[in-house]
């Protein structure tokens, strides 16, 4: 952008204070909401401890059997995961862990509810929990069916009153578990890591070991994202070899080795669409676009009236040889400057809002940060909004007849 255009953009905004203020309120509010949404999205699906390597992780969280008259969708069973994700070529590590479920800790007459997850030894190698005390339980603990547990720091504080917990026991559902480690709190938005108590999967019956459906999830750490395609292909071929337990009722078995967003999308769509991430992503993008369109329309109207005020300037520029493209670029750039200012204010407000949200009990243990990545999303959203609301008025402006424009113009 030329220095003159940038100077002009700031001067136009400073001179038309009412227009600028009205525009900024609309832009800022829109961008705050979109940035908060982007922050929640990033804090759910972006890389952050204990899911720092989420970019290399693939999940199996949904399986289903589908027929013309009935369907059955569930989390995968242990047997299904053993058959489909063990020894996948291209996988660096593989874990099977349970769906977090509510269990009860009995402590000196108190009844404390806690989210409990069953996990194998590999779970602790793939996810990078921060231990404030002790260490995770091991594969040997899992194989030996030992009653050991890792608990979260807030739970330790509730049960043991901020005193060291390693080596002490908790009564979980009537059984005593020795605490081997304490980890910092995990936000509930983390797809694989969220829980308050982790215990080994331990002994399973032979039926459970073969089960197609169950209360488990699969987690595969690929060597790199480039291995995703091969991993998914091999997984699909293994799923295709799965025996159909009821061929009369069900004609198809469907499951996916999914990225975190794909896994979420598959659950939300009930495993019923071929490309759940694309489907849900399109809906979310459409909703964001729809949400932006109302303030964008408002800004377009304001911009059109602003063009009328600046009609002689447009006429002069055209008279002196400004091509349409240059005029469109100038006006869109001016609008992007305005939305970037709105974005900067929005970023500060979104930061304050997320801090308040973290402090509230609305999302327990949430850590909604505005990191550099979210800042990047914010800039992209602001620029997109600026272009969305600037292009039409700019195009209309560029089509003004120079003689009409010099006279004061009519669009």
């Amino acid at each position, binding site marked *: 952008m030329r220095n*003159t255009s940038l100077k002009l953009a700031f001067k136009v905004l400073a001179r038309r204070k009412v227009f600028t203020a009205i525009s900024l309120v609309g832009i800022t509010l829109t961008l705050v909401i979109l940035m908060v949404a982007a922050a929640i999205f990033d804090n759910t699906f972006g890389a952050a401890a204990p899911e720092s390597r989420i970019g290399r992780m693939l999940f199996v969280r949904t399986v289903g059997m589908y027929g013309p008259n009935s369907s059955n969708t569930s989390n995968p069973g242990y047997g299904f995961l053993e058959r489909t994700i063990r020894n996948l070529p291209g996988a660096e590590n593989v874990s099977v862990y349970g769906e977090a479920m509510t269990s009860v800790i009995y402590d000196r007459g108190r009844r404390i509810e806690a989210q409990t997850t069953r996990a194998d030894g590999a779970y602790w190698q793939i996810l990078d929990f921060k231990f404030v005390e002790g260490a995770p339980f091991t594969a040997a603990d899992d194989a030996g069916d030992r009653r050991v547990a890792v608990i979260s720091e807030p739970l330790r504080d509730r049960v043991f009153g901020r005193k060291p917990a390693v080596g002490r026991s908790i009564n979980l559902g009537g059984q005593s578990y020795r605490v081997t480690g304490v980890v910092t709190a995990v936000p509930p938005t983390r797809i694989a890591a969220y829980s308050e108590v982790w215990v080994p999967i331990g002994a399973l019956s032979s039926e459970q070991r073969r089960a197609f459906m169950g209360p488990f999830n699969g987690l595969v750490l690929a060597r790199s994202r480039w291995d995703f395609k091969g991993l998914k292909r091999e997984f699909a071929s293994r799923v295709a070899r799965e025996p159909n337990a009821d061929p009369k009722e069900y004609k198809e078995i469907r499951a996916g080795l999914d990225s975190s967003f794909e896994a979420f999308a598959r659950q939300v769509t009930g495993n019923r669409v071929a490309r759940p991430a694309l489907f849900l992503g399109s809906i979310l993008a459409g909703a964001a676009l729809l949400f932006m369109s109302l303030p964008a329309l408002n800004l377009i109207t304001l911009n059109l009236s602003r063009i009328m005020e600046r009609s002689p*300037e447009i006429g002069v520029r055209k008279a002196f040889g*400004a*091509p349409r493209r240059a005029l469109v670029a100038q006006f869109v750039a001016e609008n992007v400057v305005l939305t970037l200012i709105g974005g900067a204010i929005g970023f500060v407000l979104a930061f304050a809002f997320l801090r308040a949200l973290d402090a509230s009990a609305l999302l327990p243990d949430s850590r909604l940060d505005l990191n550099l990545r979210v800042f990047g999303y914010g800039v992209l959203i602001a620029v997109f909004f600026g272009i969305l609301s600037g292009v039409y008025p700019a195009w209309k402006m560029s089509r003004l007849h120079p003689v009409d424009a*010099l006279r004061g113009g009519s669009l």
Partner: protein
Amino acid sequence: MITLKDIDKVYRTERVETLALHNINLDIAQGEFVSIMGPSGCGKSTLLNLVGLLDKPTTGTLTLDGQKINGAGDKALARMRNEKLGFVFQSFHLVPDLTVLDNVEIPLLYRRMTAADRRKHALAALDRVGLASRVHHFPTQLSGGQQQRVAIARAIVGKPTIVLADEPTGNLDSAMGDEIMSILEELNSKDQTTIVMVTHDDRFAERTSRTVRLFDGRQVA
């Protein structure tokens, strides 16, 4: 340099058809200083707009520097305006948010030129109209005569071969009008810049090399 042959200009709305110019034939040679006169609404500005490639004739042919304009696209017309033409308007049309220097640089923004070169040319043009000391002022901080001098600097900064002036003295008192007229005369005599000027003032028309008179859209002299 400029040739208009059998030019008609008709403005059409849904209900009304207005013949603004009829059968205009005009040759303007390089280095001429031509004034256009006539009563209000006779088509003077329309004629100037056609010569300035700001509007297109309904019929007839317009040739500029040996190049036929009829059928040229918007992009080509914009390039020709940028390279060959300079405009001076009655109400100056300076951009109020820009300094004098930035205003004068406007035509050069649409050329391949560095910022330093733009600045150098703009300063030279302002020096020529005697406003080198006002480069960082804003238009509203200047008198009408000074604003019109800035407008002339903007018109000549790109070294056009033709300057089109639409009543350049119309909003000025006689002293300031004289000042502007002298600058235009100097441009014409020293640089051989072709000047076409619309005016209502006989005194200024007499100082040009030729006067074209229009009446009801027709050329009467």
